[in-house]
């Protein structure tokens, strides 16, 4: 199987699996891969797959040309790790077909049995810089509305935080009968969810919950004697 990652300035725009014998690339909407950019010709290039799953790129006499690993090509076979440039977009080729090690212009390395592959340095940079530019993680937490707590506001930056009596809890519950772990709050990227600890009472927006609840800005959580409001920073 051959996969193509369409990227714009290093960021992945989409992933395409080449199922058809011919996959056309161009600015016009009748192409299989449409790249809406002035640098791309109406019908710019096409990818042709033969019966052996070997893919070749063919330039369709485009104005700005089609480039393979930085070199202008009219027609060229594509191997794993190759990068095809069309205007300012790039197509990264993931294929079972590998170029001979010596002929490789850049490194794509396989774990034994050709299992894991590290993306080539140039390509890797693109992915990396794209991921580094990812917006900083959005943090959230709880504001104490009712009940006595050490702080008025708790921002939860750790991936897993505990509300409970136990030492190390992010939000510490006081009182002899408070559970050591009442609930767990998980943070995943910009999302938070709360899960009651086994058999412990937890109310969200007035309703008792037994399962994971995805927290939304403004949700009211009642745990022990505390009433907390969830917030998410903008």
């Amino acid at each position, binding site marked *: 199987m051959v996969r193509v990652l369409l990227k714009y300035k290093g960021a992945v725009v989409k992933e395409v699996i080449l199922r058809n014998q011919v996959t056309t690339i161009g600015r016009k909407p009748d192409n299989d891969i449409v790249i809406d950019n002035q640098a791309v010709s109406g019908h710019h290039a096409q990818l042709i797959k033969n019966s052996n799953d070997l893919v070749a790129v063919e330039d369709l006499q485009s104005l700005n040309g089609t480039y393979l690993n930085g070199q202008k090509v009219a027609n060229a076979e594509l191997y794993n790790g190759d990068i095809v440039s069309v205007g300012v977009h790039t197509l990264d080729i993931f294929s079972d077909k590998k170029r001979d090690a010596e002929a490789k212009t850049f490194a794509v390395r396989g774990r034994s049995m050709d299992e894991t592959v590290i993306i080539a340095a140039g390509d*890797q940079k693109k992915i990396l810089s794209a991921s580094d530019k990812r917006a900083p993680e959005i943090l959230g937490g709880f504001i104490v509305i009712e009940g006595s707590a050490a702080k008025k506001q708790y921002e939860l930056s750790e991936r897993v935080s505990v509300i409970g009596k136990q*030492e190390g809890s992010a939000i510490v519950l006081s009182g002899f009968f408070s559970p050591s772990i009442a609930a767990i709050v998980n943070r995943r990227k910009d999302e938070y969810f709360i899960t009651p*600890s086994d058999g412990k009472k937890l109310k969200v927006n007035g309703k008792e919950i037994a399962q994971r609840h995805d927290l939304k800005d403004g949700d009211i959580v009642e745990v022990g004697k505390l009433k907390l409001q969830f917030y998410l920073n903008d």
Partner: protein
Amino acid sequence: MELIAAGKTDTGIVRSNNEDNFIVDEKRGLLVVADGMGGHAAGEIASKIAVSVISEHLLGRQRFFGEYNNLYSPSTNNLNSALRLANSAILEAAASSPQLHGMGTTVAAAMICGNRLTIAHIGDSRVYLVRSGNIEQLTDDHSVVNEQVNRHLITPEEAANSLSKNYLTKALGISADMEADLSELTLLSGDILLLCTDGLSNMVTDEKMLEAIMLAHKPAAICDLLISKANEEGGKDNITAVIGSIGKTKWHSILFNYMAFLRR
């Protein structure tokens, strides 16, 4: 916090050699797994260099490597420095011999300092936290698939079935300017840490890993169970599992350490 830990590695069913390596150091609270890659024996060497350099760097009176990041604690910075050193050690070794050229490795490292946990990772080896009957992955894989999930290009379900899971975007030994992902967490007594290579996480679902962890008690028994589950599911890759169980430091162990100290 007191750490009781164990680690096991297994070649799996399909592969002929094991390119994984790990280190378990209860006393210093250090857990590391590494999954090497590269032809011939290079993968094994890369992962071996990674775990031993990290361990030795943290053991010795270390010279700090690279830039200090004020956002993180000193121990997180030390661990990061150890990974940087391991990276250059692998690059150096690879440059010294054509057979080793191109080798690399993933690393997932966890270090316990008081009740604080420090995590550094690069590649697709993972750290999980099991707390109060829930399992949570604490690391984000450096793989093309995961980057796609992060950009909402594909769903996590599609990612789990993706064929391009084995495309890494970062690994040790690939370039001099490698930077690991760092994170910190407050530990609670009763927490269980799992570090594993993709030979486990690609074969066994998070839920099944949790089941195994809850079923067995001793860290070594959990590791055995996890590995046998991965092999039951096909054992397509080398499997490494490290389990660390966190408990309160007991008064008798403090006393014992004190006695040991006196006896020196």
